[in-house]
């Protein structure tokens, strides 16, 4: 009787232990599942953040393009259209004078018209270069920056130095274009606002990043809390242009200390952009 009791007692205890074991295993599995779910949830969160960031960059890129179109339309309106209007009026006026036999001023009027046409060709050429600097296509960013400094600063008292260690290396067009436009924005800011005497442009690269520095010894300024104002739209433009290719910009400035822009452009983004391969830093 006692033996039978002990037998069933042991069987029962074994069964209970087995159940406890199964329960513990189930809890471990559940914890692992919860942990996995958390990991998945975090991964999904990161994916969503990444999607939102891409969306934001796309929006910014569209904004920049729209802003540039507005500027271009304004430049066309205020420049060539007005001056061609003047030329048309002067030609009509000249026709009238010739018709009336008033020939004494015709030569001067023709010279004036010729001067206006030349002025407009210069203006249109400037806009064409602004849209797509030919130097970038022909000789790359290093030569492009030399030309840029010359065109933006040559009629000022500023002395400038463009130092490039990249030689004739070429990068994907979008990388070179962003570097060029960032440099242009910074140099125009220096020219307009910095009251500097010296400015230097430095271009270097390492294995995956193109580094661009524009530094002046001007009056500097207090970095604004927000760049989304008209006054600091140039700063915003620089940040957005860089963000559009995954680049960044550090601005070092304060009143009396000059201004230093340090832009980093990840040139190995090229495969994602479907351009060249990951080793496309080509000496030509």
């Amino acid at each position: 009787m006692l033996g039978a009791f002990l037998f069933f007692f042991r069987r029962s205890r074994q069964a209970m232990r087995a159940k406890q074991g199964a329960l513990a295993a189930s809890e471990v599995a559940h914890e692992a599942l919860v942990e996995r779910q958390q990991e998945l949830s975090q991964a999904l969160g990161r994916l969503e953040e990444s999607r939102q960031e891409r969306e934001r960059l796309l929006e910014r890129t569209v904004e920049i393009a729209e802003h540039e179109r507005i500027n271009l339309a304004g430049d066309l309106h205020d420049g060539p259209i007005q001056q061609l209007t003047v030329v048309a009026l002067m030609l009509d006026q000249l026709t009238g004078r010739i018709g009336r036999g008033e020939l004494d001023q015709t030569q001067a009027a023709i010279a004036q018209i010729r001067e206006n046409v030349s002025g407009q060709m210069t203006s249109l050429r400037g806009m064409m270069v602004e849209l797509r600097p030919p130097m970038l296509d022909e000789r790359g960013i290093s030569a492009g920056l030399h030309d840029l400094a010359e065109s933006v600063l040559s009629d000022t008292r500023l002395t400038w130095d463009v130092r490039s260690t990249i030689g004739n290396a070429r990068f994907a067009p979008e990388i070179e274009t962003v570097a060029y436009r960032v440099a242009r924005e910074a140099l125009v800011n220096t020219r307009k606002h910095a009251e500097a005497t010296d400015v230097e442009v430095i271009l270097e690269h390492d294995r995956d990043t193109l580094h661009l520095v524009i530094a002046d010894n001007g009056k500097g300024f207090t970095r604004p809390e927000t760049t989304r104002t008209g006054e600091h739209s140039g700063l915003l433009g620089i940040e957005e242009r860089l963000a559009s290719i995954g680049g960044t910009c550090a601005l070092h400035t304060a009143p009396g200390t000059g201004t230093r822009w340090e832009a980093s452009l990840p040139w190995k983004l090229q495969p994602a952009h479907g351009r060249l391969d990951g080793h496309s830093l080509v000496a030509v």
Partner: protein
Amino acid sequence: MSSSATTGRRIVIVDDDDNVRTTLCSSLGEYGFDVVGTGSDGFEAVLLAVELNPEVMLLDVRMPRLGGLEAARRIRALDASIRFVILSAYDDSTLQQEARDLGASRFLVKGCSFTDLVEAIAER
């Protein structure tokens, strides 16, 4: 050089481009119009309308501070007798309709012939 339709007709020219304004002034003056005033934005247009009471105002559309169409609207509210000729860089049907709605007698696109311009200003 001029006709009775143009001689002495008092006009005001408003355009923000100095070169356009000067050339219009010279051409129309040479043709016999009496250019009594010039301005470079819509606010000046309103002031000139009040001060000079011209017969015709030649207005550009896109100008700083205040555009030509809005200036015409304000002037119209003050004085219904002034005629407007709009001279714009934009060949745009919406702007043309807006100009017509304001009672502008003509909408010309910059680059039009001088004859068209003279006719537009001279018509009564």
